């Protein structure tokens, strides 16, 4: 074995990278070598699972998806040629994502700012923090059934439709599902924002206070722009969870085939009404569901996957725009 230093010293013929790597590996202890092999194997296996999932969904999806399918409304029918497309579930998914994110984003960012920057009163801050942790850990079906109980209360009669004879409140609508769905996205936005704020060094805040800036000016002009990419990451994660959740949709959106307005008011009526998302559509059309139309289930799942990937790219793009140059004025 050569005693020459591995770096520096000129050599007549520099060995190739592969040879050098193998030479280095020979110096390793057997247990370390085993560990490296194990790590690579596990990593490759996981990658294989993910790749085959994407590939399988891609092949199946591309096989069944068509423009026609995307832009026609679903219809009830005995035969698959009569049951139309997936326009309503696509719209429903986008609406739910929009409503839930619009609620969750300000709440989560506000809560994180309060916890990190103010944290007064301390006991309340602790309660809020552990409350959000509980929500993060709760199964969405449990959150859904709780939400249903809430939105069936008479004071929420405006949020969905009621039985004509003045009976019970239906409790299922885009408003109800979107509101409850915001709880699914809230913990991830909260956690990433909080962590980002905590990682902003103290001297950055002091620099701002040292210039005679108020706490609010510091938050608005320094801290929020600094943590914007992290908020975007958390939001992308949250949107993914929203788009992927089925339990809340089945219980609180009704999972009806078509968008069905809850009242005659245009726009608002749709929000008060029921509908479905891609997840509930997949569920209902999968071989285990009621519809047993796997082709459409595959197509819808493929679209859902693309949607989530697209959302992630979009939000990541927004977040990656450097906080340096485009500070809001």
């Amino acid at each position, binding site marked *: 074995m050569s005693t020459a230093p591995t770096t520096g010293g000129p050599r007549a013929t520099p060995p190739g990278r592969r040879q050098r790597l193998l030479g280095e590996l020979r110096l390793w202890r057997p247990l370390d070598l085993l560990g490296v092999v194990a790590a690579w194997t596990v990593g490759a296996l996981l990658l294989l699972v993910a790749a085959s999932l994407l590939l399988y969904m891609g092949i199946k999806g591309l096989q069944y998806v068509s423009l026609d399918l995307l832009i026609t409304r679903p219809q009830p029918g005995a035969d698959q040629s009569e049951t139309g497309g997936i326009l309503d579930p696509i719209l429903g998914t986008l609406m739910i994502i929009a409503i839930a994110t619009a609620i969750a984003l300000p709440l989560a960012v506000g809560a994180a700012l309060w916890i990190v920057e103010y944290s007064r009163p301390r006991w309340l801050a602790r309660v809020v923090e552990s409350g959000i942790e509980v929500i993060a850990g709760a199964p969405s079906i449990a959150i859904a059934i709780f939400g249903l109980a809430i939105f069936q209360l008479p004071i929420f009669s405006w949020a969905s439709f009621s039985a004509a004879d003045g009976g019970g409140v239906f409790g299922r609508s885009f408003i109800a599902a979107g509101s409850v769905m915001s709880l699914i996205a809230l913990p991830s936005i909260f956690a990433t924002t909080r962590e980002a704020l905590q990682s902003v*060094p103290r001297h950055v805040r002091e*620099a701002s206070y040292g210039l005679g800036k108020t706490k609010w000016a510091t938050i608005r002009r320094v801290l929020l722009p600094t943590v914007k990419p992290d908020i975007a990451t958390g939001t992308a994660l949250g949107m993914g969870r929203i788009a992927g959740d089925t339990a809340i949709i089945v219980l609180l959106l009704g999972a009806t085939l078509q968008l069905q307005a809850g009242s005659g008011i245009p726009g608002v009526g749709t929000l008060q009404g029921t509908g479905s998302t891609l997840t509930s559509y997949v569920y209902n059309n999968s071989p285990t569901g009621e519809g047993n139309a796997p082709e459409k289930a595959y197509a819808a799942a493929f679209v859902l996957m693309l949607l989530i990937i697209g959302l992630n790219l979009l939000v990541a793009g927004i977040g990656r725009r450097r906080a340096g140059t485009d500070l809001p004025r």
Partner: protein
Amino acid sequence: MVEFPPPVRRITPNGSPNVVDPADRQGMPEPIARATRPSYGPERLRIDGVSIHYAGTERPAVNAVTLPVRQGEVLALIGPSGCGKTTLLRSLNRLVELTPGASRQGRILLDGEDVDHLEITRLRRRVSMIFQQPNPFPMSIFDNVAYAIREQAMRRPGKAALMPRVETALRRAGLWDEVADDLGRPALRLSGGQQQRLCIARALAVEPDVLLMDEPCSALDPISTGVVEELIHELRENLAIVIVTHNLAQARRVGDHVAFMYLGDLVEYAPTEELFTRPRADRTREYVQGSFG
């Protein structure tokens, strides 16, 4: 008031008799009068019997310090780590209040006015601060300075309206020529020395009366340090400057007066050359000669 043992015993565990007698400290303000030179302007900041305690520690971080800061002079605070010089500095614009559990006794007068009676945002614009670590905001160079200028007004002034003041500040900090071609560059892409000068520009942009510097060169290379020290020389014409430094050579280079602190006490305050060549307290002599620290 908690009774503190005189610093003597802690300073010299070996029992050598160099002592700063508490009685000696009593007479501390005296050299101030002696030091006054006609070239200095009026007294801008007066530290009047300031003590600072941190909750949970018995000994005050700063113990009954009285010091004047005059227009046109640089006051250098020196002393070993933990002697309270940074704490004292941070109390001058009430930044120390951000530290939980910190409390201050004594008065700090800015142009004769108690700083506790000033609105805190206004105080911090008049007494602005440069930190040890260059800490530009993660924004563009322009925005770093503009952020300091912008008031919390309903209508925010635009880029063009702010440009003259931004340029003036960057010129005063000696950074303009290096960054003028691209003010939209992120500040964090600048070198360490440039970042620190940007922080100085930012602090100057608010047109302060007093500039506080907390070891402004400790994170910089020797060349950048030279540039910043040169800057301090130029700036003191229009400002009162208080600088905390670990670097005795630097204190000697930039300071007009030097205050030596030890374990929260002000041990000696004198014109720079006097303190370095003819220190009155033995503790000071040992420190400036490098016997401890």
